[in-house]
């Protein structure tokens, strides 16, 4: 049943969507122009399409290596967050004691601490232990990512009956087996949410990598983009091609996992 009065609403929606897309349109259109043509006009499509900018931006960004760096950091961090947060949430939800309540509360309270409040001593401490490297970065992501992840897992675990654990224990499974073979598979929906939320955040993070792995050859995409942009700040044709390259992986991922991403983000926010 479609009603006539929805037509103006639909028109308004489409109009707004075009406004929302305009920045992407302008970025792509101008990334295909020569420097001179951008100078003459920024709104028109290019008179002749040139991929020259992309070739140069690709090599200047050392794009393949930068992309692999980002994937490596993000995937390792997310896997570690998923494994250790789900385990911790399991222990906290199955052992009902004052200690568990306090630990859980500390994790939740830690979510309130803004990064800038701990940033300076954090870099100092990890610098002293010579941990300002990729291993240190992944460990830091565990520290910052654990709170929300434990919170989400804890909520999901409360709806899985304890009798399941007991039945498996009677069958001779030890605690690790009970968790990994019985409980963890049942947590799959919330694992997807946890993985999505942490992936978006870690993939896009700039400040922490800039403080921890600021070395040639190790840069993630946001970090490399910052230096690249600084170098080509008046050369928009190159800068825009670089920016387009930087967002292509995210757009591809969004295209394939759109439903899960939107669902995950709304669950993470509402809880």
């Amino acid at each position: 049943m479609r009603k006539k009065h929805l037509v103006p609403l639909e028109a308004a929606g489409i109009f707004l969507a075009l406004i929302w897309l305009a920045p992407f349109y302008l970025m792509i259109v101008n990334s295909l122009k020569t420097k001179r043509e951008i100078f003459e006009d920024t709104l028109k499509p290019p008179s002749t399409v040139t991929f020259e900018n992309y070739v140069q931006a690709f090599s200047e960004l050392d794009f393949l290596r930068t992309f692999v760096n980002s994937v490596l950091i993000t995937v390792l961090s997310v896997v570690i967050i998923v494994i250790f947060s789900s385990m911790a949430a399991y222990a906290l939800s199955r052992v009902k004691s004052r200690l568990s309540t306090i630990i859980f509360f500390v994790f939740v309270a830690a979510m309130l601490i803004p990064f800038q409040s701990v940033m300076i001593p954090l870099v100092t401490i990890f610098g002293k232990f010579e941990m300002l490297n990729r291993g240190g970065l992944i460990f830091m992501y565990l520290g910052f990512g654990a709170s929300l992840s434990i919170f989400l897992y804890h909520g999901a675990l409360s709806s899985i009956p304890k009798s399941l654990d007991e039945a498996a224990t009677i069958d001779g499974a030890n605690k690790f087996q009970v968790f990994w073979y019985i409980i963890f598979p049942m947590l799959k929906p919330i694992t997807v949410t946890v993985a999505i939320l942490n992936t978006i955040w870690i993939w896009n993070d700039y400040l922490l990598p800039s403080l921890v792995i600021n070395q040639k050859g190790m840069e993630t995409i946001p970090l490399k983009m910052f230096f690249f942009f600084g170098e080509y700040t008046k050369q928009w044709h190159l800068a825009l091609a670089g920016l387009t390259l930087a967002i292509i992986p995210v757009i591809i991922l969004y295209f394939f996992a759109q439903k899960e991403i939107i669902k995950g983000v709304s669950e993470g926010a509402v809880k």
Partner: protein
Amino acid sequence: MRKRDLSYWLFLMPVLAALLLVVIAPLLLGIYYSFTDWNGIQTKGFVGFDNYIALFQDERFMDSLWFTVKFSIVSVILINLIGLSLALIVTAKLKTNKALRTIFFMPNLIGGLILGFIWQFIFTKAFAGFGSIVGIESLQGWLSTPGTGFWGLVILMSWQMSGYIMVIYIAYLEGISKELIEAAEIDGANAFQRFRHVVFPLVAPAFTVSMFLTLSNTFKLYDQNLSLTGGGPYNSTQMVAMEIFNTAFGRYDMAYAQAKAVIFFLIVAVIALLQVYLSKKREVEM
């Protein structure tokens, strides 16, 4: 699994160690440093509240705090208005509503640093180009004045975050049963009355969630601030997070920067506790 079991601690150990070393120890150490003359390497001794007294007389810090407050208030209002409007549009029975949701939400997946660079182009080049075609003088020179820098940041954040807030409102709007709205329609309520008296009270909890989410995100903003305006012109658009960073890693005034970071933490904590208090209060009333 019991409390005294070894496995209890084995399950908890990795995240406890990470939280302790990455968050708790730096927080406590930071509070300690803020009362000393620490220079990043060593301290000569306590200075009491000197750093805190100094920062309240520090024009650069107070300006950045004031700018952050103004920016947050304006952004929170706009993002929530736009987000709710988008949610109302895409929850109607439109042919395009799936595609529209996809488009409105998209900016949230891209990092703030990159979005700021893209919008720097839009404001400085595309605005100017469009302005000279249609003859609007005020579209020239964006981001080069404090006013356009402020509105530039507001526009960027509204464009980015409205789709996120839209998703939250959708979750609540789709929880409202169709019968309820149809019943009101049969009773003769017009579209506005249905929104005001049926939909609005039911999405009210979404307001608390969305308001505080936008407030905390805009108050702590750093990446977009760095890439869009860099704090310029003349530090006029520098927000608190960037001010702390520059005090520490630009001017190497470590103990002083840490005192600012502690104040920043206290403000954010008060905002968060206020949210907890308000949502608890609402639960009691309902």
